[in-house]
């Protein structure tokens, strides 16, 4: 999984919550931080490798190293800074060039939900962008913990399904002529882009 977005939107704080469910103010990330986290789904444990990239512009030249081949890309912006939302769209265009559609789960995350009174990006705007571009969408607060563990669980589930669908696609292509659409049926419409690969 790779976390992308402008400096200061709270990627490292989210990553910290993912792992330890605590909140600390952090320094800007240098280069890229690598962490691993176990996520328990009902019938399986997934080990996530998380690349928490640096949002600072000077590190942008190395960021593609990390999102290439990622199963999940989380685009984070700060709901109290419009500019970070615009920046997320630049990242999105970049990602779309690199990522094979359907091979990765893309998630748009509006963080700092606790700063409601300073909000510059409405929930609808986030949702709309996500819907138009086939991303999942959540609003979180790394500070209060709001929706953070839910986000991780949801990402894990989608990644698992996405991997499952790809594997089925493969096995089906090799062996059985049976088309199994079971996984895809469970997706909501805005989620469909996740698993376009397959039969």
């Amino acid at each position, binding site marked *: 999984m790779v976390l992308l977005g402008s400096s*200061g939107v709270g990627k*490292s704080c989210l990553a910290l919550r993912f792992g330890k469910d605590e909140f600390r103010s952090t320094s800007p990330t*240098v*280069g*890229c*931080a*690598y962490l691993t986290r176990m996520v328990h789904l009902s019938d399986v444990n997934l080990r996530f490798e998380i690349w928490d990239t640096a949002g600072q*512009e*000077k590190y942008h*030249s190395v960021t593609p190293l990390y999102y290439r081949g990622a199963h999940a890309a989380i685009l984070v912006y700060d709901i109290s800074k419009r500019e970070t939302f615009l920046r997320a769209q630049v990242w999105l265009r970049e990602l779309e060039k690199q990522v094979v559609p359907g091979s990765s789960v893309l998630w748009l995350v509006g963080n700092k939900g606790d700063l409601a009174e300073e909000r510059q990006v409405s929930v609808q705007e986030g949702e709309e962008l996500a819907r138009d571009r086939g991303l999942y969408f959540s609003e979180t607060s790394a500070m209060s913990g709001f929706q953070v563990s839910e986000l991780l669980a949801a990402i894990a589930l989608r990644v698992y399904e996405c991997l499952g669908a790809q594997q089925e696609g493969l096995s089906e292509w090799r062996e059985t002529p049976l088309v199994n659409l079971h996984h895809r049926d469970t997706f909501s419409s805005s989620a469909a882009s996740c698993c376009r690969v397959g039969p």
Partner: protein
Amino acid sequence: MEAGTQEMPAFMTNRDEDVTSDSWRQHRKHVFVLSEAGKPIYSRYGSEEALSSTMGVMMALVSFVQSGDNIIRSVYSELHTVVFLQKGPLVLVCVSNSRQSEEQLRGELLYVYYQIISMLTQASISRIFEHKKNYDLRRLLAGSEKILDGLLNLVDSDPSFLLTAIHCLPLASSLRDSLSQILQKAITPNLVFSILVAKNQLLTIVQEKTVIEDARLEPADVHLLLNLIGASSAFQAGEIWTPICLPLFNPDCYFYAYISYLDPPECTVCLLLLSTDKEAFYAVADCKRKIEEAMVAQNALSLIAKAHSYSVSQVGVSDLRHFMYKPFDVPDTYRQLTQFTSPEMEAPYSSEEEKMRLLDLYRYMHSRIHSSTRPLKLIYHVAERETLLAWVTSKFELYTCFSPLVTKACAITAITKLLRWIKKEEERLFIRYPPKYSTTPNPSKSSRGGKSDQQDSTENGFLTLL
């Protein structure tokens, strides 16, 4: 595009300072960085924006003197020394009332320049300003103010910078050797330096043979690296992988640094592995696992935890309060890192003010020894509350601090004893023969950080962002 990203994160309290206040004016040392076009890039205190008129004045001064083919170097007033340093398209200015020499202040500005280079490389900076003279470099340095602030605080408080030498943690030579061997065994292609640090002091460093034949690792590069580690939140993050340039080694290309603490959650022992291959993260992270396993097997972490700096009382010379000793007598074939040794600062130098006062005395002695007009070999200086003696020979540079009543004869005897003690302890105090390994598959191509990297910095993403 110009307006760029100029959010000032909340934790940077220096930046919020009112630049019209007296307290702002009274800081011991201001440091400013601006572009040749006069654009503010960095200010140690107060935000660059609030200061842009001040910087404008400085720039006017610089260009006025430059137009006479006469590069401005320094300005003295009763209370302040103002030192200018131009490096490529950057102008660095220091305004100090610390009574340091112009050379010392210029040396400090050079550290600031090098730290900027360590993040961006000299080649990218030149290219950026070639393309666009009034580029706002703060865009690329956003978020790094803290690294520069940290550097300047270290420069003021850590004599390693003054002496351009490395301070290593005293360690039984058998332990240091076994740590080196652990590092020597955990290698992967294109790994060039393996460095182990505890409590901000060096434990050991292993260097790639062919790389180090071409260029030696300079203490200043190590200082910059250590400062960067200090400023990064690797302790929360697990493992860091970041491009970094070692400006004295090669100002134009990047290494890729792997940074991880070996003893979470305490986070005192840090491992740094430098590779020339930016894709080598997993291979390098694998080296760390090996190192970790070997350290556990040898119980190395608990041994390191017991290591600490020493007290001057161990030397057994009465009246000696403190010293700094920098030897020169190591065979050059070893590509030795310049090091120095120094005991803890103890009473009467326990408080921050007293420590700073002693350092200022050392800085004064240092400036006399290294004076460009009248360098001295030996200085005996009776100050108000202590007596100092500095001595430089072809074998060492030594600064000593005695209680005020010591006689010159006593001081000389004491120094003889001290030198004998250091000789006896040198295996413990210094990394005598830095170990090496060989990781480059094709040595002839590996010089100075590798060709591929050189290219890398030229096609680096910055330009596309202009």
